[in-house]
């Protein structure tokens, strides 16, 4: 009876160990699968990163080329040619066309544009006062 008990005990140990080994094997298998999956996903990710990097470099090159094209079109010579082609007589503003104003809206003293405007005003005032006929004409035009 004692002997049988010993055998059954040994049998249970073996069964228990077999279960453990099976569990370990299963665990290893799962680990391998997980590793494979992770590896594959990493490879995919790496591939897509590579693709994105290449796309980025391509777009960067394209942007650089496009900005260069714009730079080339903006040179003074090309602009001049384009203006001539379209019949636009554009020039830098003359000193008499520039009015510099203070923050409160009054013009800086000694400006040519202001002097010219004042000269015009004075001239027209003189002209108005000199000829009554003209003044009449001017007032009629104004009424219209």
């Amino acid at each position: 009876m004692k002997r049988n008990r010993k055998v059954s005990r040994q049998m249970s140990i073996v069964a228990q160990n077999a279960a453990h080994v099976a569990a370990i094997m299963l665990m290893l298998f799962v680990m391998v699968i997980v590793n494979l999956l992770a590896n594959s996903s990493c490879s995919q990710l790496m591939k897509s990163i590579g693709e994105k990097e290449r796309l980025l470099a391509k777009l960067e090159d394209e942007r650089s080329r496009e900005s260069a094209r714009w730079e080339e079109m903006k040179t003074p010579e090309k602009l001049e040619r384009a203006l001539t082609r379209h019949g636009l007589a554009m020039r830098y503003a003359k000193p008499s066309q520039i009015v510099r104003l203070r923050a409160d809206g009054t013009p800086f003293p000694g400006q040519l544009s202001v002097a010219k405007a004042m000269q015009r005003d004075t001239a027209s005032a003189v002209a108005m006062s000199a000829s009554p006929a003209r003044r009449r004409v001017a007032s009629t035009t104004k009424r219209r």
Partner: protein
Amino acid sequence: MCSENKRFWLPVIALLAFSAYSAQKLFRTHFETDAAEPRYQFERDVPACRGAIYDATGKSSALVKSVPCWEYRLDPVAMTNAVVRPRGEKIPRTREAICRSIANALSLDYRKVLEMSRNTSNRYQYLAQSTDPAAHKILSDRRLVSGVVIEDRQIRQYFEGKRLCHVIGAINKEGVGSAGIELKYERELSGVPGRIRGCRDARGAEIYEKRMETVAPIPGADIRLTIDRNLQYEAETALADGLAKYGAGSGWCVVLDAQTADVLAMASLPDFNPLFFGRAPDASKVNRVTNFTYEPGSVMKVITACAGIDLGIVGPDSLYTTNRDDDRYYRLPGDGRHVWDPRMSVRDALVHSSNIVMGKLGCDMGPKNLWNYMKAFGFGSKTGVELPGEEGGILPHWQKWDKVKWSRAPIGQGISVTAMQLASAYQAIANDGVRMKPHIISKITSGDGRTLYEAKGEVAARPISRSTARKVREMMLGVASSEGTARRAAIRGYSVAGKTGTAQKVVNGKYSDSLYRATFCGIVPSGAVYRNKGDQAPAQPRIVVLVTLDFDHRALYHQGGNSSAPVFKRIAMAALRYLEVEPDRPDELLDFEDEDEFDNVMKERTQST
């Protein structure tokens, strides 16, 4: 139970750990051997993007930039072997059809491409470099074209073409600077190349997943110039027109900021195309503003007058006789027919450009004093502008001067200067006697945005006092008037302080009677005129413009006042308008309706005087 479990588990865990470790070792060795296979591994440098050069306005307007492009080469052998069929067609494309596609895409001569395709002994023949994506699409389509090898390259694009070529310079085929800023700042512009270590497949294409090392390249630094591309355009156009109109062989001009000595424009003709620098003639490669010395002629009289007044030997109204046979002086230079007064003030001597009076003044102050002033004005040494190959000019030591030179150096003979030195000296007069170091580089920014260099106003010397500078500027006003030698330099609404110079060229060791260099150097506004009544100080000078026309054959208008002065006027007018400089003689603008009317009145006044 517990000890029994331990007895079982410990060896199992140890076994597992050992097997994992050995497997790892084994596989690692295997992969390492595989990766180390030289057939699959490669290592290559990634070229750094060369830095760009911008004008004074900054990032918005690049003058030069490196742009990615495609280089196309023709491999006639590959073209022969390939059987290319267009979509849906059964007949392969003929060699002629392929060549026509290539020629059309790259705007090349069809016959030339066809000829290249027949030369099978020469593989990888250069076709073109292009940045056109449409051309790339056609040439990379294997159904349309075969035998074209495409490589990614970088092309240096010079947006202004020939303009500013002497300043910017050029690069050679290896991409190394060989002239101008490209040469001087090669280290900054070139950057640091990167590196890639990886594996490639059987076809030679890189396997991106197996890249082992990537060291990104550091792009080159960007350089910002003080030159404004719009002003440069105006200056170069005016100079080219002047050369054509007056028949000069070459010419140069420089525009400086009167306060800071920043170079706003610099032109030298003849010029070259930076893309074909190697093929350009040597004469056109010279930047005549900084790398060429010449006898300045009468423009040096201003320096003599400055020295005389600053020393207190003379004043603007001190009188001299225009008698050449004066025993006190040895071999005085002659005067032209334009000088007739028996007695002449220093002011008039400047206005009429009298050689005799200036020669006498030079002799009176002595060679040592004159030499010292010339040195202080920067003659005989480099100005330090950031361009390669700058010349220092020739100014012999005063102890080596013979008695003839005593009277010749004051009128600009027997010494040689560069245009930049002359402009810098005039800048000192414009800036109340303070000569600033001329600058052409405004800022250098590294590829990662750090500022490597920023130009700051640097005082080079103080050759004369403020009062002397003001007196001389006031004297120079007369030159660009109806009485002076440069009536054609007068600008409506602005006062011009300048001086003409018509220097005879030396041919076979003698001064030529037919070949001249005509110069005009002027300061606008002069800084000697009060804009409004009651102003505390005269209007500040804004720009200094120097123009020289070099006549290599006899020309009708070879004088500085007739040829260089009108060019000066055109450049100065454009610059004043562009820089929005307020006129210091607004009355003239009110009195005269336009520039033509002003010119006619000036002409009439000159004829009457």
